[in-house]
């Protein structure tokens, strides 16, 4: 009986201990990356290749998602605002929602699903096929050669993709509000401009996406680097990247919002 209780308590504590352990090794990886940042500048093309992989290839999914999210915001916003007779503020509702929350958060989650999982799979596969080992016995630090360029590429790509998402969303909202529901185009833009503040809304939103970019890319490279070197291990790591990234982004979003606005 006594032993059962002890075992039960132990099991309760296990996930927590695991979490602390993971957090510790992620931070260690981050420090390792930061220390190796200067060396990545030696080979700019690796960073460009990284941006091509995680930024360029995500353009379509980000733009299309942004457009539809904006259209939904326009439609829902119209229906709700119509009840209070204030459809004139539709533009600012769409823009503020996208700039402050939906743009950074959804872009980061989509990025994790599209590019983050790809980074994890690539690194995991390289580990499974001994490419990481091969690199380190060739006296090349895989963190310097592989991880840091991907990390920099992710940090550059996410804010740019977020801006694209928001612009596509605003255009989607404009399409629904002005072209379909015949709102006045001038009111749409001027109301938007009146209520959107450059520093509070635009820059804070982009700063958020910068933080999300760091966390999602870090999680992706960590999961790939730590994946079990088997086919199953890689698939598990890929799933983990998406799940952990989504949770982290949502939790961080609350913290950042509380701090900023």
């Amino acid at each position, binding site marked *: 009986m006594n032993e059962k209780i002890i075992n039960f308590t132990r099991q309760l504590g296990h996930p927590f201990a695991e979490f602390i352990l993971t957090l510790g090794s992620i931070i260690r990886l981050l420090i390792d990356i930061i220390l190796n940042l200067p060396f990545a500048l030696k080979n700019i093309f690796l960073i460009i290749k990284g941006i091509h992989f995680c930024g360029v290839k995500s353009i379509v999914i980000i733009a299309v998602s942004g457009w539809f999210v904006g259209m939904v915001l326009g439609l829902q916003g119209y229906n709700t605002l119509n009840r209070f007779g204030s459809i004139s503020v539709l533009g600012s509702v769409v823009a503020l929602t996208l700039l402050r929350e939906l743009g950074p958060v959804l872009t980061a989650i989509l990025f994790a699903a599209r590019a983050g999982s790809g980074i994890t799979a690539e690194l995991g596969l390289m580990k499974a096929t001994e490419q990481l080992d091969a690199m380190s016995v060739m006296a090349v630090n895989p963190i310097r050669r592989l991880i840091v360029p991907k990390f920099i590429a992710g940090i550059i790509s996410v804010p740019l993709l977020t801006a694209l998402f928001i612009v596509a969303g605003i255009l989607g909202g404009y399409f629904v509000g002005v072209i379909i529901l015949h709102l006045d185009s001038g009111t749409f833009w001027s109301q938007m401009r*009146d209520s959107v503040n450059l520093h509070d809304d635009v820059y804070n939103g982009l700063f958020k996406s910068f933080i999300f970019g760091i966390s999602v890319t870090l999680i992706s490279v960590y999961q790939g680097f730590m994946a079990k070197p088997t086919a199953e291990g890689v698939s598990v790591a890929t799933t983990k990247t998406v799940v952990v990234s989504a949770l982290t982004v949502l939790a961080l979003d609350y913290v950042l919002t509380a701090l900023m606005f």
Partner: protein
Amino acid sequence: MKRLTIDFTVGVFVLIGIICVAFLSLKVANTSNISNASNGSYSISAAFTNIGSLKITAPVKVSGFVVGRVTNIYLDPKTYQAVVVMDINNAYKFTTDTSAQILTVGLLGEQYVSLQSGASDTYLKNKDKITLTSSALVIEDLIGKFMTNINNKQ
């Protein structure tokens, strides 16, 4: 894929991103600070007995045209009046007998400061004060007046 193609597509991507950021900064957000206007701005203030829910960055309009923004609001500790500081575009001059009024866009919309020019020969300078002011309309007061009117008639 060829290195040149990758370089090119990444270049296009970064360009799109920068255009989007520029669009958000210039077209979507208000580049509110009139002081950043090409021909500069000057500051005037006005004291109101009630400013309603007027906020910093609210527009200052003349005949509905935006000529400046509210930059600061504070309480005068002697008169217990709210002092509203506004930045006005240098292109527009107002007479010393200009009156200021706080109005609302629509019934429930945002509040703004409306200026009405007078007939004086002298113009307001930087740091000058508008003396003719009328406060914001507060709906509760209106309803209260309306109710007393009805009661009196009965």
